[in-house]
């Protein structure tokens, strides 16, 4: 079984600054994927970034990047140059590469952008 923990219920950041959202996970699988999803006020879940566990290089998508520490089972999301449109709930999720395709989600972090 997999578990995902997001220990920061709420975070805030000044516009144009950088913020890091934390996520830790636990799994017995050797191969798995990790994801960050964004849920804006519209409530539609939007994929932000994904990381394959077998890859050592951290994934990057424009202003979004991750710090993947496999041994520590940590998967944090860094948002650079924060914009007002980044305000949302952010969910960390994981799934095994093979077998059960179930995505396991964390409880989310609400990010507020301060103008």
């Amino acid at each position, binding site marked *: 079984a997999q578990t995902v923990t997001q220990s920061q219920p709420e975070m805030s950041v000044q516009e144009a600054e950088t913020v890091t959202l934390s996520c830790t996970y636990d799994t017995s699988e050797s191969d798995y994927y990790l994801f960050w999803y964004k849920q804006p006020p519209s*409530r539609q879940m939007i*994929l932000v970034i*994904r990381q394959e566990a077998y890859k050592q290089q951290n994934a990057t998508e424009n202003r979004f990047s991750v710090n993947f520490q496999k041994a520590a089972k940590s998967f944090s999301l860094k948002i650079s140059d924060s914009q007002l449109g980044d305000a949302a709930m952010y969910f960390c999720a994981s799934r095994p590469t093979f077998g059960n*395709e*179930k995505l396991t*989600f964390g409880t*989310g972090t609400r990010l507020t952008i301060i103008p």
Partner: protein
Amino acid sequence: SQTIHQWPATLVQPVGSPLSLECTVEGTSNPNLYWYRQAAGRGLQLLFYSVGIGQISSEVPQNLSASRPQDRQFILSSKKLLLSDSGFYLCAWSGLAYEQYFGPGTRLTVT
């Protein structure tokens, strides 16, 4: 490109009434399909997933059921709604890649 639709967007139903939520995917074949529920201020709970027509796996025993009558259609149903069924229902699909893509969701209020 692939798109996923859900309807209705919002629904208010009395306790004991039936429910039917529909999800359709365009632009892909043989997707895996998922139904999630999100209670207010909480994370997502997987309810059902399907890897093909007529193939449904249930994650949480409850008064909800799911069906997949066509390759790209996924339906969430209930014969009698409970107050605890209120929430935000999200449909998602995944293909050859490992990420899931979500629809716009249905907000269900049971009164």
